[in-house]
């Protein structure tokens, strides 16, 4: 049986309640957008396989509840991630201001070599914009992150931003990756490096639908 993937790793979506984390994820994994959806309570995840530089990359993307009090639960998942999306809503100044808090939480609870990317979502709602693109750019630069404005609704910059973070994670784990290239049979499970979990191929997982 052909290998399902070469590398497996985890990404995490963080940001205030209502910025569109679940919709970004649904758009990316299922290319769907549901105007009618429910708030996320607790944690949820989806999987998708990408091919980057000839490497089959299977990513598990964890979606979290945005309300502050859920952080006691979601923080437990920070340390298991290799990459993090910090998401705000361009129509909400407050969600943008909170990015600093989210970033400092990541610094505190996530592994050192974690890769981060800044996302300003709902770019289609230009008439309601409260956060200028320049502000997003500047913040990203200050933190040394890449920055994308996205729209889950119009499918703008979705694949681009997810692929970019995946590339960053791959680059940050280049050493392990080179080892992988040397061996033909093994697959690299970045997600399992921190904890010895019996993660097997996620073939069954990939066939299910969208939960949102």
């Amino acid at each position: 049986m052909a290998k399902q993937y070469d590398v497996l790793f985890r990404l995490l979506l963080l940001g205030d309640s209502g910025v569109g984390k679940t919709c970004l994820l649904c758009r990316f994994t299922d290319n769907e957008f549901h105007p009618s959806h429910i708030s996320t309570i607790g944690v949820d995840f989806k999987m998708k396989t990408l091919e980057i530089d000839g490497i089959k990359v299977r990513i598990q993307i964890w979606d979290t509840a945005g309300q502050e009090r859920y952080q006691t639960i979601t923080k437990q998942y920070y340390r298991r991630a290799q990459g993090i999306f910090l998401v705000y809503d361009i129509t909400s100044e407050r969600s943008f201001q909170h990015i600093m808090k989210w970033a400092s939480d990541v610094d505190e609870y996530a592994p050192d070599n974690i890769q981060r990317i800044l996302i300003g979502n709902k770019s289609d709602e230009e008439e309601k914009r409260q956060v200028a693109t320049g502000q997003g750019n500047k913040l990203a630069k200050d933190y040394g992150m890449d920055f994308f404005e996205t729209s889950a609704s119009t499918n703008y910059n979705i694949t681009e931003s997810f692929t970019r973070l995946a590339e960053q994670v791959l680059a940050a784990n280049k050493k392990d990756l080179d080892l992988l290239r040397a061996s033909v049979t093994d697959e690299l499970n970045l997600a399992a490096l921190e904890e010895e979990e019996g993660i097997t191929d996620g073939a069954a997982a990939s066939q299910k639908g969208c939960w949102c």
Partner: protein
Amino acid sequence: VKNGRKSADSRSIRTISSSHMDDESSLGSDSEINGFTNDRHTDKYGFIGGAQQYSEESAQDVPPEVLRQREVKWLDMLSNWDKWMVKRHKKVRLRCQKGIPPSLRGRAWLYLSGGKVKREQNRGKFEELDSQAGDPKELDVIEKDLHRQFPFHEMFVSRGGHGQQDLFRVLKAYTLYRPEEGYCQAQAPIAAVLLMHMPAEDAFWGLVQICEKYLPGYYSAGLEAIQLDGEILYALTRRVSPLVYRHLEKHKMEPILYMTEWFMCAFSRTLPWASVLRVWDMFLCDGVKIIFRVGLVLLKCMLGTREKLKACQGQYETMELLRAIEPRYMQEGFLVREVLEVPVSERDVEREHHVQLKRWRKNRGELHCKSPPRMHGARAIMASEPPSRQDLRQNPTIIVESPLPPPQPTPQLKKGEKSKEEKSKKKGSMKKAPTVMEIPNPYPLAGDPQRDPQLPLRDPQLPLRDPQLPLRDPQLPLRDPQLPLRDPMPTLRNSTVQQPLVNDTPLPNTPEDSPPPHQPTLNDQSLLTVSPLQKSTQSLSSIEADQDTYL
């Protein structure tokens, strides 16, 4: 603007079962504003789409005659609530397990939860909270959640519609009632379920009871209580289903991964709607052990055999399985039967709570949030906050004159009189009541030869439509004139509004001269007289100012 208009689930909206309930959908509901006017079918619960909708596979229909009988029984219980709870609690529980009749569910829930008593003891409180502004930070989060609760329910489908407005009022009122607790996102689905069955003030008190008595600490900052219950569930799994336990252990499946939404929303987002209602009937009667049992049943059904586990080797595969529970395991009848068989009692939950709390303290220190003790169900709540008879009194919103002449002598009509149904079944404290005069039903069912001995009651606030009801207008309730007067205390304060339905006959009691609370002598035969007034109630909007309740 967007919400619902281009529903991704439109396919299921068109293909839902051609059940005979569908034509009961109401006109002029919010959903129509939202683009669902054409081609829309509303199921008997008010869902216009989504996975929780009615389907013949997920629900079991109760024959109309049985439903009628149950309604009569529930009406009797509700009018003698304190006695039933004290002396015949097992019967109340059994009837909750069988399912509360839809027409009385809202009222029954409010009585079971103690919300009714809370409301009576805090008159004016909700109104007061409702008139306050609220903390902008809390309101910001609440507002973002309003359109994200049951978006396929006709009550909540429309942005800014009446359902979402009431949801806002209830959630905001709670943040003002318990500023130290604030708003927690999982409260929204709980409040929404309540709002589907009762007006905003009642839903508020129902929410208060769930947050403070049934699931204390679940919604508090830090979310410690839900994590602790996760550990309790895990420990109970070990006992109930060792195979499942070993699997969860092997794959490091932390309980919070799969049970957070289950428990915090009391399964209201997980199960098909018929099952949600049955679970809530039992939950509000017996407390959190029902939630644990439902969780255990789902775990066991999905992961309980070696074949199933073989096909599910990994944390993510396991989680996928638990997020997509097979419909047959959630089918109303199956689920209720299984839940009743799970050998987990109140004491088991308490014992495990004690053990896990000790472990928690050892590993993580003291709990930061001191929650009140958990109440295991309706009886415990009632014992902790004893109601006066007055608190349990049912107050009709509108009283409609019977088409029939009142019986001749109408002597001592007093409060607390009893219903006549079930007289043959009553025993013990429930004395026999005099025979009821046979009165023809003015609203016969279509297929009725002559009269239906027990026409259903409609709960006027109930947004659901009962397929058996002859009325087309879901808002218009029906009172069977044969049913005795429920409430001898007419609250006809704004009677002018309801002309000509209002009976303006002077009535013996006014709210001001109500008798002292609960005397054991209330079974006295003289109090069991049939009312001269055959009353009927009619729904009023819950906004209607000084209508404090509904019948």
